């Protein structure tokens, strides 16, 4: 494929790609349990142990290894981010295409519903959904997916409308192609670029939203770890054990940085006119 090479050739793509790749590796290791220590094991005598050669990032209130929990947390946060963005992108694409393709009444209904969702403050909408369904990994995923669906719907509907008006779709239609063929073949292909960029950026937001939800105690449930939950738990230990806040804080910043860099690179690659502009 040309894509990886293009990303690699782009300076921020290189850095962003490296960061995201590293996190993916950590996430997979974390999810498989291949961590330096058992992330759930409570080493009672080593409670709130400062970082050293045994515990690279120290231990928490329970004597659990922070480095291992960080890997587990990255796994958890990424799982939530990936699934929620995947669902939002899927729902947004289907709704956006439906709105653009069927037009008129459908368009009106879909876009008004999206307006309703957009008019809610994001964190409040997520908060309400979690409050209704009860906290947990899947609730967080669904809540964040619903919050970001309108954005994807808009991203898809706009280009889909203008593509629909263009000749090649008309041409395909006169040649007797079925609607579903036209939809998938022509429209979707042309939507790959804006969608990919949007997905990368949405992953960064999803990580932040998950952290925010966990910070309010409505996200990941203990004893599992997520970056937001680790930060939230460290809040009142900031002075006693600063490492509890520093490492998850840095981890969350760097991961978002990675996705932002990668998103910028992708935008440049897909849209050469903007190349020099945003790099």
């Amino acid at each position, binding site marked *: 494929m040309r894509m990886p090479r293009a990303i690699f050739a782009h300076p921020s793509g290189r850095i962003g790609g490296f960061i995201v790749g590293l996190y993916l590796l950590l996430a997979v290791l974390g999810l498989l349990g291949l961590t330096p220590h058992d992330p759930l094991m409570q080493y*009672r005598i080593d409670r709130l142990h400062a970082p050293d050669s045994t515990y690279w990032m120290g231990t928490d209130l*329970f004597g659990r290894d922070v480095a291992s929990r960080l890997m587990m947390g990255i796994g958890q946060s990424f799982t939530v981010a990936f699934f929620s963005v995947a669902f939002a992108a899927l729902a947004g694409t289907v709704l956006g295409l439906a709105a653009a393709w069927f037009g008129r009444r459908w368009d009106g209904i879909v876009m008004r519903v999206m307006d309703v969702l957009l008019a809610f403050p994001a964190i409040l909408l997520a908060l309400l959904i979690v409050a209704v369904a009860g*906290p947990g990994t899947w609730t967080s995923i669904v809540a964040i997916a619903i919050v970001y669906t309108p954005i994807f719907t808009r991203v898809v509907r706009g280009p889909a409308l203008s593509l629909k008006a263009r000749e090649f779709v008309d041409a395909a239609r006169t040649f007797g192609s079925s609607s579903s063929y036209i939809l998938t073949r022509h429209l979707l292909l042309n939507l790959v670029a804006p969608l990919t960029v949007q997905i990368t950026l949405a992953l960064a937001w999803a990580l932040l939203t998950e952290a925010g939800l966990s910070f309010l105690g409505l996200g990941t449930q*203990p004893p599992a770890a997520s970056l937001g939950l680790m930060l939230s*738990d460290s*809040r*009142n230990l900031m002075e*006693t054990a600063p490492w509890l806040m520093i490492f998850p804080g840095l981890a969350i910043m760097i991961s978002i940085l990675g996705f932002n860099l990668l998103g910028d690179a992708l935008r440049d690659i897909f849209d050469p006119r903007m190349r020099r502009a945003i790099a």
Partner: protein
Amino acid sequence: MVQHLTRKLLSGMALPGIALAVMLGTAAVPIQANAATLHMAWSQDATGLDPHKQTAFSSLRLLELIYEPLVRVDANLRIVPAIADSWQFSADGKELTFKLNPKAKFQNGAAVTSADVKASFERILDEKTGAAARANFLSIASIDTPDPATVVFHLSQPDVPILTAMSDVNAAIVPAGEIAAGSVGTKAIGSGPFKLDKWDPNAKEVLSANKDWAGGATGVDGIEISVLPDETAILAAMRTKQIDFALLNDPLVATLVPKDASLQLNRVPVLAYHVLQLNPSRKPMTELKVRQAISCAIDRQDVLDTASLGEGKVTGPLTIPSLATDPSQLFCYKRDVEKAKQLMSEAGYADGFSATVIGATGEPPTAAAEAQVIQSQLAEIGVKLDIKMMELNVYVDAWLKGDFDMAIALNGGRADPYTMYNRYWTKAGNLQKVANYIDDTLDSQMQQGRAETDPAKRKAIFAEFEKHLAEVSPWIWLYTSYSYTAQQKNIAGFVPTPTGTLFSLSKVTIQQ
């Protein structure tokens, strides 16, 4: 237009930096223009002003400064006068007579009379009021007011604990006129040391001294209470001398207070207890041996050390110091994993089982930590716990329905064991559907304790009650923690008490 705007923006760029420094500089000066005002902070605000309806911790703490009950309990949990000067049980224990303090006055200037007392208790007993404390006063058959300074309660049965229940601000005396006007709860007119001048919910309260208070002059002219939702921020505000006095909940924050030379931490063991409630109506907690195994598998000291940094004391069911027995004498208070495993296999659960434990986020702040320590301890006998932390109201809803396998809770204590536990451990208890366990022994011990007037005999009855309760293990009592208040060192005269009341703020002074 746009160009103009930009130029303005650019020229203004250097300014914010300087302005910031100036503003922070001015803000660093402590605000003590009126030194006789106590600046206080807490993280959770009161939820309302009707003393008969409010049960939230902060509501009670606020209302205790404004309203007065007939009697109060002091730091040693002894009953002392408030509105009533003296009181007397009749020989058969079915008549309770109060003599009111003639100086007692409401903040609207009217004297507190026996008619107000009668109207207040009738309001509590009226189902339309929705007073939770009503359950404690059901033995009141009628109320007589032979003269304005005398009230006689006629009881349907001997009821010693009713006096303790009357010391609660939930049994505060409000003006009969306000009851008739239906304005209790919208206007706060009590007979206590402070008047409420302003209440901005979830933001602040302004209290001023009640010059006519029968208890004498207050030490400060007023109290301003700020709601700072984040306890780390409360500590920060105390370090910069903006706050004189604060209520803290989280031991992780409270233990940082003594590190600051100008701050003092007051801690007092409280009657409330941290507990793991089992639900004996759900399998396999229906089995006595399973419940006992859980009790034996839990290291209470370890839960306390980890979740609360050791800030507290392991406790049995009774938390009242004068009645509590030494916890080490109770069933399985020394961890015994072997015994636990044996009990599990005798009950037919040698391979363990799975269950869900619920807890409220931040209520108490240690809930999530307690759940996690217990989870890892119970894993050793094959009990696999799934933790569900919920928003407080969602938790309360599930808790009231008894819809849980196990629940982490911090339950309130009372100065009398009967008032504290009759809701759970009597056959007619209102919260039987939460406790889901009762036997004849517990019920009869509670009834005997209620009627017994001799303190020594009462103590013996409740000691047996405690021993039995720990043995049948419907719940696993863990520990009692401290109630924390933090203050600047120039604040004098605060007396912390096991009920958590801030009533002694009425005599607190600010030294220069």
